[in-house]
């Protein structure tokens, strides 16, 4: 460490001589970051975003966001002489005539897929370890907004080349807008600048894709990372780590070197993937024509849950007052995702309300120690995964020689049955693990060695665990359900907001009724003094 501190001081000194900012630099360079692989998931998202900015800028040099018609005369013969939009033509030009254009397109698109998947896994890490608790709720909200924006950004980018698949995607988007009662038609008219497909859409999506949304991204990501900086990073429980300190490595040079290296690893993996595997081969899809459509047109994976939601929904419609409200579009494309993202954004506040916990938390939870939260998380993931799978029902049908109708029916059942089952199973597993932890602290680790006592009794030898491990397994708080407050206060006056407090007690019971308490120090001491077993 001494060497590291010296290095930090040196840099501080060098800069101070010129800019007189020694204090700030020193503090910054010595800022400590806890280290764990799961803390690098957000970094993968961040670096993918930077890759997207770099490659995207390259693409803007040639891309023409215009729907005016041209005749193709480029290098790709199988499309020679066809009429197409300038957007499609310029994307073909980037792919076949611009040096390095195809690899840039492929890096851009693969990085987009990795970007969103890294966000999703990062989010799962935050959720299951409880990193969203006070004081980090703001960052959770920002994260939810970033994820939502990423989906829109992806949809916009995917639509830009104006090929057959992206056109089909836009057609679906139009259908979704139209399904909105009253305002749908106007909204669609407004977005498309007239009748679908119109002439303005690509230009508008382009502005959103290269300027508007990336701008918001940059601002939000900056705030997001600054907040991590000021609130300090959370840490996993270990002896010596408390709610008041941060144990890890200094920002400079250890963290900077690691982060810098990881940026190049991210870039390397993305570039390698892009040089080996095709993504979005728009030249195979052909130009968009409203009359054409290809079988099995799917969106990128991050929109797959919406596709599945649409494919799974039974064809219900409501007719009233001369209007037809297509529930088969409205529910799956707007209500389901609306509910999912609202629940996601509100979760920290729901849990805070349930626990009534107003303290700050910097030590992360082990998922098993919060069984209900972990169960709810797995419930949500299973719901999302079934929607995602439902979006590829035709591929299941053709791969396994099944009827697409029965598959869709099966998904309609699974989406209702599987999430609750996942919840119960996950919760039981967590409780089981907690029980095992408790046993371990009290009686040591099972060794598998069977010993025969002189009186003939057989026992398994248990090996005591280290103090560190004991600490690890007992440091957490096991919450109990909130007590229901009496209906009247001390003076016999009925309490206000009685219903709310009753609801809260009920939810709290749902959360914390089943629990395994970690052994108390007294219990441990008793076992230790009374000798083993």
């Amino acid at each position, binding site marked *: 460490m001494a060497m590291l501190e010296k290095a930090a001081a040196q840099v501080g000194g060098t800069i101070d001589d010129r800019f007189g900012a020694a204090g700030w630099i020193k503090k910054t360079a010595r800022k400590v970051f806890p280290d764990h*692989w799961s803390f690098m998931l957000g970094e993968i998202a961040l670096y993918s975003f930077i890759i997207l900015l770099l490659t995207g800028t390259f693409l803007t040099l040639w891309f023409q966001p215009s729907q005016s018609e041209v005749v193709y005369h480029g290098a790709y013969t199988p499309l020679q002489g066809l009429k197409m939009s300038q957007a499609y033509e310029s994307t073909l030009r980037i792919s076949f005539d611009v040096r390095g254009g195809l690899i840039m397109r492929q890096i851009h698109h693969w990085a987009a897929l990795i970007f969103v998947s890294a966000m999703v896994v990062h989010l799962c890490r935050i959720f299951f370890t409880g990193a969203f608790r006070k004081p980090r709720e703001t960052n959770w909200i920002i994260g939810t907004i970033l994820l939502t924006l990423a989906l829109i950004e992806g949809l916009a980018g995917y639509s830009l080349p104006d090929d057959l698949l992206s056109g089909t995607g836009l057609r679906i988007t139009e259908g979704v807008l139209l399904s909105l009662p009253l305002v749908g038609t106007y909204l669609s008219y407004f977005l498309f600048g007239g009748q679908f497909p119109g002439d303005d859409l690509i230009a508008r999506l382009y502005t959103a894709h290269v300027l508007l949304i990336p701008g918001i991204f940059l601002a939000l990501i900056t705030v997001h990372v600054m907040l991590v900086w000021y609130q300090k990073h959370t840490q996993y429980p270990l002896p010596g780590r408390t709610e008041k300190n941060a144990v890890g490595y200094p920002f400079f040079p250890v963290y900077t070197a690691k982060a810098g290296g990881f940026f190049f690893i991210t870039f390397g993996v993305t570039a390698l993937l892009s040089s080996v595997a095709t993504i979005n081969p728009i030249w195979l899809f052909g130009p968009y024509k409203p009359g054409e459509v290809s079988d099995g047109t799917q969106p990128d994976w991050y929109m797959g849950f919406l596709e599945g939601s649409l494919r799974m929904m039974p064809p219900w419609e409501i007719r009233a007052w001369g209007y037809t409200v297509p529930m088969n579009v409205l529910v799956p494309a707007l209500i389901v995702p609306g509910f999912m993202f609202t629940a996601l954004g509100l979760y920290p506040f729901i849990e805070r309300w349930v626990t009534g916990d107003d303290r700050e938390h910097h030590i992360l939870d082990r998922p098993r120690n919060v069984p209900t939260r972990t169960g709810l998380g797995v419930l949500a993931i299973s719901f999302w995964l079934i929607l995602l799978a439902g979006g590829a029902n035709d591929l299941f049908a053709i791969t396994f020689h099944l009827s697409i109708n*029965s598959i869709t029916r099966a998904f309609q059942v699974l989406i209702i049955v599987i999430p609750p089952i996942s919840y119960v199973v996950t919760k039981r597993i967590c409780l089981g693990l907690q029980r095992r932890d408790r046993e371990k602290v009290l009686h040591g680790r099972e060794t598998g060695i069977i010993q025969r006592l002189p009186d003939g009794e057989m026992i398994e030898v248990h090996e005591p665990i280290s103090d560190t491990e004991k600490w690890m397994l007992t440091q957490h708080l096991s919450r109990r359900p909130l007590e229901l407050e009496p209906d009247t206060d001390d003076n016999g006056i009925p309490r206000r907001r009685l219903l709310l407090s009753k609801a809260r007690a009920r939810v709290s019971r749902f959360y914390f009724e089943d629990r395994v308490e970690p052994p108390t120090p007294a219990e441990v001491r008793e076992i230790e003094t009374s000798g083993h077993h």
Partner: protein
Amino acid sequence: MRRLTVPWTGLTRRRRHRFAPLVVLAAALGVTGGLYTALAPSPHAEAASGVSTASIDQGRGLFLRNCSSCHGLNAEGSSDGPTLIGVGAAAVDFQVGTGRMPAANVGPQIVKKRPSFDAQQTAALAAYVASLAPGPAIPDKSQLDYTNSDIAKGGEIYRTNCAMCHNFAGSGGALTLGKFAPALRGTSPRHMYEAMITGPQSMPVFSDSTMPAKDKREIIAFLRNSAKEPGPGGLSLGKIGPVSEGGVGWLFGLGALIACAVWLGAKAR
């Protein structure tokens, strides 16, 4: 035997061969047959075009043994198979040549398998069915010659008429109730053409009146080109669209990066 002198054959007296009369006879028969084919009412159109009655007889024999259980003794159809009267030689050549017939499986759709008959037997079966009533004929070489066809136009026609079932690159796709449109990469031009003119099972018929023969050749040119086209972007991932890309992105993109993160995290300790 009196020698025939046939001045207009161009054979000089000196070079006259003793088989010449036979050749002439055959030629005369050929011409007559050809004229007959052209002028006669069509029922026997295909039977006459180079197919002997022997072939038809052999075809009838094969039919009775292998097909009549479903299609009826006179191909009039039964509860197990439709009538074949009027389906034409093209339908038989396609169904038998791709191994779909004789049907064996009891799935939602009769599928392709190794053909049970060789080319000659298939031709005989086709000749027999064609002799029952006129129908689409097996396309000849000139009809299948797509070497000068416009691939780009073929692509456009394909995307308008076929891609909704067979996918943008001919990778195949699912239809309702377990039926599917097969992948077209391994299909021969002849079977492609026959599929279009006969419309097997759930596929619509694209007759010459709705889709001229030239368009069909263009589609074939497009499909053949797309089957052998090297992917400029690397591995094609099945040419089925974004689903396989998503899988690869998670597995080899994010998966690899998480592996690196775990490795870096382990190095710290």
